[in-house]
């Protein structure tokens, strides 16, 4: 199976009756996702796309088995929604909200760590196993991007993911599992924490990470390789090689860590353990061919 989710994974939708929630529930079901129920407080008894809506996650899990929860919840209510999912023992949570307060994200990640749960996001397009299932909003209908295959992809970006993944596909590859960990300064889950899942995944031959300046996430991946916890080929594309120091290019991650995390440092870290770094999105496909001996 894919990592995180496949077509069998039982997915709950928190915020299913909202405009965004119902629209993307339709799409998720359309691309194979096994949506089992939804939650919107006060809307129990309704249905969305044929799925029962419950007042709360507790009531939902009383009625149906749930393995993962997809949150379409505004940023300021995201912490509560994540804690509600954790409270019911759900260990896989995806939140696409863009604009979660920083101090909430700290508490979300802390809770996820102590519950042994994977919280993906916020500020992400979500998770997709092309051809099988999706949690989030990926343009899976664009075949030149979301073609199934054997390359794992992890990313901190949205549009750039489409850009880079299109290059992976145009080089003749496809994607096994794509995890958008999101662009927040404190994502619920970090690149390095997903690497062991790719390592164990029989459907993944190599992983592409789409990173950027700031933070230490790429360096942590290098450490995983050094520690022998990830042994498959790794190719990275990192934006921000020429970014001026101190300017914040949208994602806050760069600033919060306080001056560390130049792309130069990241390239050195990855290459020092045998990983490859593409200078341009176009080169990702070439490097994949090289590391896979094609």
């Amino acid at each position, binding site marked *: 199976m894919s990592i995180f989710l496949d077509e069998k994974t039982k997915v709950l939708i928190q915020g299913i009756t909202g405009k965004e929630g119902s629209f993307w529930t339709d799409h998720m079901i359309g691309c194979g996702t096994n949506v089992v129920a939804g939650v919107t407080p006060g809307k129990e008894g309704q249905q969305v796309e044929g799925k029962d809506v419950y007042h709360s996650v507790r009531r939902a899990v009383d009625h149906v088995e749930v393995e993962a929860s997809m949150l379409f919840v505004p940023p300021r209510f995201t912490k509560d929604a994540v804690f509600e999912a954790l409270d019911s023992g759900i260990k896989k949570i995806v939140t696409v909200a863009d604009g979660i307060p920083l101090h909430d994200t700290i508490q979300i990640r802390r809770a996820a760590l102590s519950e042994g749960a994977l919280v993906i996001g916020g500020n992400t397009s979500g998770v997709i196993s092309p051809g099988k299932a999706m949690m989030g909003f990926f343009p899976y209908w664009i075949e030149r991007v979301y073609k199934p295959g054997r390359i794992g992809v992890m990313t901190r970006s949205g549009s750039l993911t489409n850009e880079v993944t299109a290059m992976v596909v145009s080089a003749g590859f496809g994607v096994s599992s794509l995890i958008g960990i999101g662009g927040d300064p404190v994502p619920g889950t970090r690149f390095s924490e997903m690497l062991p899942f790719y390592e164990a995944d029989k459907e993944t031959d190599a992983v592409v990470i789409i990173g950027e300046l700031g933070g230490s996430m790429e360096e942590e991946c290098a450490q995983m390789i050094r520690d022998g916890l990830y042994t498959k080929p790794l190719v990275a594309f990192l934006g921000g090689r020429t970014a001026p120091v101190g300017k914040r290019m949208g994602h806050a991650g760069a600033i919060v860590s*306080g*001056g560390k995390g130049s792309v130069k440092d990241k390239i050195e870290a990855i290459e020092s353990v045998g990983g490859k770094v593409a200078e341009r999105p176009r080169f990702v496909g070439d490097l994949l061919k090289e590391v896979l001996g094609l």
Partner: protein
Amino acid sequence: MKLFEYQAKETFKKSGIAIPKGVLIKSVSELRSAADKIGFPLVLKSQVLMGGRGKKGLIRFVKDHVDAEKNCSELFNSEFKVNTILVEEAVDIKSEIYLSVTVDPVTASHMIIACADGGVEIETLAVDSPEKIIREFVDPNYGLMPFQIKDIAFRMGIKRAVLKKFSSVLGKLYLAFLENDAELIEINPLFITRTDDVIAGDGKLSIDDNSAYRQTGYEKTREYYDSDAEYESALEGIPYLQFDGDISLMCAGAGLTTTVYDLINYEGGTVANYLEFGGPNYKKAVRAMELCLKNDSKVILVVTFGTIARADVMARGIVDAINRLNPDRPIVTCIRGTNEEEANIILKDAGLEPIYDTEEAVRKAVSIASGGSK
């Protein structure tokens, strides 16, 4: 949202952290009465958001009225657009400490950073004497505990006479960090005076923009921004960065924009500004292009690869904007994603030549900017 020194100090004061006596002035005419209140010697501190004010000569120690007036005039007339000066008492300092609170994304902790040698920027400290920097991780579920404060103090070699006041300042700084939804709160330098008082010599406070809805009371005024375009963008909630090159970027997504920025540099071009055309802004093409046109750029480059931000909507917006604004410079588009086929038709119908490869679009924009064909 990064605040001015005087705002950070107001927050410190509210939190019970001592600050030097000070008066804020907006013109030289206010100087004399301010100086009389504070007494000489005093310090003139330009209230600008950029770092390294000392090196840039934006902080001046003055000993009398003549000296003060001369320096004050120079500051208000400097190239750094100084609108406000903090007139502050010169504290009799024994030593200077660095103290800040921020977050650590890896451990999901709050992080205290402290150093017994304050007064220089933490980035400089980190390079010059990393062994002197003390990091203490705070579990957000428990908060900063007294034993941690004591341990930090011992590791810094805080003298017994100062311990109580230092501990109080650190405890209050931590609470201010929480209460203000801060990304960073910093006192650098924290003065230890000859009378063993502990006073915040300088202050940085950066409020998390995502928490603005619960951190009211901080208004975004023109003062915070380098250019009108940045200010107007901020008022509309459109992320915007000002540079001084030739190509205006109207791009969607921070990651893709950063990449386009790199590609422009690889091709020898320069960027005039970055305006975020994605997310909730994808329907605001007219306003976005208007803001880009405020720049002295030679070309506007639009690069998107959207999902919710539909390509057809963006394409129609660009055409609409061109019709309404009649821009004086070329527009290069690379609009892809949901409904990109329809976008293609819209752009072609409007007489544009849509491109679908980012590098090709970048090359075209750079070529235009360097005087090549339109």
